[in-house]
């Protein structure tokens, strides 16, 4: 059964490639607009064997990795601080929603004016994108914890720190993980967009640079790698963590 499901997942991919190939051959589309799948494969082999791809990939992956760590490190405590304070939560909820309307990309002009075409600019954009869902979800997670959990612990003599470690953290953990996963998805998109403008390496730089030389094959390799890396990181790294925490701690909201 599982095996059939796996195959079904691949079906749309195969179909897309078939249509792409069919259109290219059937309508005789110029190489300036679209290249065939084998040409993309050839470009992939060239980029991969020369180590070019690895360099761009590692730039993008380390950027998203660093941004995730920083956003987690600052976003979770911030979410706790806000979530445990009813007044702060009410004050900040609207503001956070508002910020979600201004995408990371919309900050690029300002960020470039402030820090130029640098990794710092890109990192700032990605952290901004990532941290908002982390703060937001930590906050909602904390606020969803029944007050009785906290009252009961206080009458057992628990200190504030003890309540954070024994109630707030485990109670909000499923929500924190969900927020981080969401943030990483948004952050990945913001990263690619920022790299396209900042042009200091990364997969966004790869595909935008290839455009200047009309290298459609490289553009398409870049796009496929961007999608593949997202799925691989999300499904093989982030989702298992989420499933694990939900199974272990998620009983709260069964």
């Amino acid at each position: 059964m599982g095996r059939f499901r796996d195959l079904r997942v691949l079906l749309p991919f195969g179909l897309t490639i078939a249509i792409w190939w069919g259109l290219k051959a059937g309508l005789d589309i110029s190489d300036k607009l679209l290249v065939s799948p084998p040409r993309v494969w050839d470009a992939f082999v060239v980029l991969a064997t020369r180590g070019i791809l690895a360099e761009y990939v590692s730039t993008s992956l380390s950027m998203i990795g660093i941004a995730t760590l920083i956003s987690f490190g600052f976003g979770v405590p911030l979410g706790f601080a806000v979530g445990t304070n009813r007044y702060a939560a009410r004050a900040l909820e609207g503001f956070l929603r508002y910020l979600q309307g201004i995408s990371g990309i919309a900050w690029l002009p300002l960020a470039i004016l402030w820090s130029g075409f640098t990794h710092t600019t890109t990192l700032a954009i990605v952290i901004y994108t990532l941290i908002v869902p982390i703060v937001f979800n930590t906050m909602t997670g904390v606020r969803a914890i029944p007050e009785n959990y906290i009252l009961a612990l206080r009458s057992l003599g628990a200190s504030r720190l003890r309540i954070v470690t024994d109630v707030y953290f485990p109670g909000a953990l499923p929500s924190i993980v969900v927020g981080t996963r969401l943030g990483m998805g948004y952050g990945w998109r913001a990263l690619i967009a920022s790299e396209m403008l900042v042009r200091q390496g990364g997969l966004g730089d790869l595909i935008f640079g290839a455009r200047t030389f009309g290298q459609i094959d490289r553009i398409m390799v870049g796009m496929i790698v961007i999608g593949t890396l997202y799925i691989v990181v999300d499904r093989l790294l982030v989702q298992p963590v989420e499933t694990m925490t939900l199974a272990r701690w998620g009983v709260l909201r069964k």
Partner: protein
Amino acid sequence: MSADKIVVSGFRHFFQSDSGPVQATGQIDLTIREGEVVTLVGPSGCGKTTLLKAIAGFIAPTEGEIRCDGRLVRAPGRDRGVVFQELAILPWRTVRRNIAHGLEIARVAKAERDKTVERLIGLMGLVGFEDRYPHELSGGMRQRVAVARTWAADPDVILMDEPFAAVDAMTRLTLQEELGRLCATTRKTVFFITHSVEEAVFLGDRVLVMTRRPGTIKATLDVPRHGKGGRDWDSFTGDPEMRAISEQVMHLVHAERV
């Protein structure tokens, strides 16, 4: 005559709401003696939970003061354990670790902690469920865990807010008998809120009846106990004296129907 444990004097409480202050209780004066089980019945919304939360130290009284062992209550403390109606044991801790929580916080050594937890697991009929999580237990068992957690921390005073209200009627009878035994053997000072007149008379050494909101204490009835130790429902229902007291309380409560 034992010493006064909890003294509530001139207590009145108001909550702030968007449409101004809401009076939650009328003036309440109350003394609970050491080792006494005091039960409280009253109509919904009369301020029972408010009074309990003030004794626990969760809310500061708008007026009046509350003393425990002569000291002013300002904050929650280990000397006053609380059992809520529901939703108070932690779903990510096993039965054993929930019960041990208060002892962990008090940094009691592991060996002693285990001994206490083991004893309460036996007393509360939780043997075989030590390593289960709350969502794997019935509502009645979860309440046993909550009761055991509070008892394990060994507070002087135990405050209970309708602890068995969400439990099915059959299980409730058992839990009430178990609690009665626990109270009798440990001689804790207990303040117990309930909607059930029978439960109040069955468990209490003294039953308090409150008026409707803003509630004040309108009557206090002593429940004489013949013999020591546990109480059970069979002898309770067969006892004309108990029936008479229950009826009396029932009349007082009915007069307050909203």
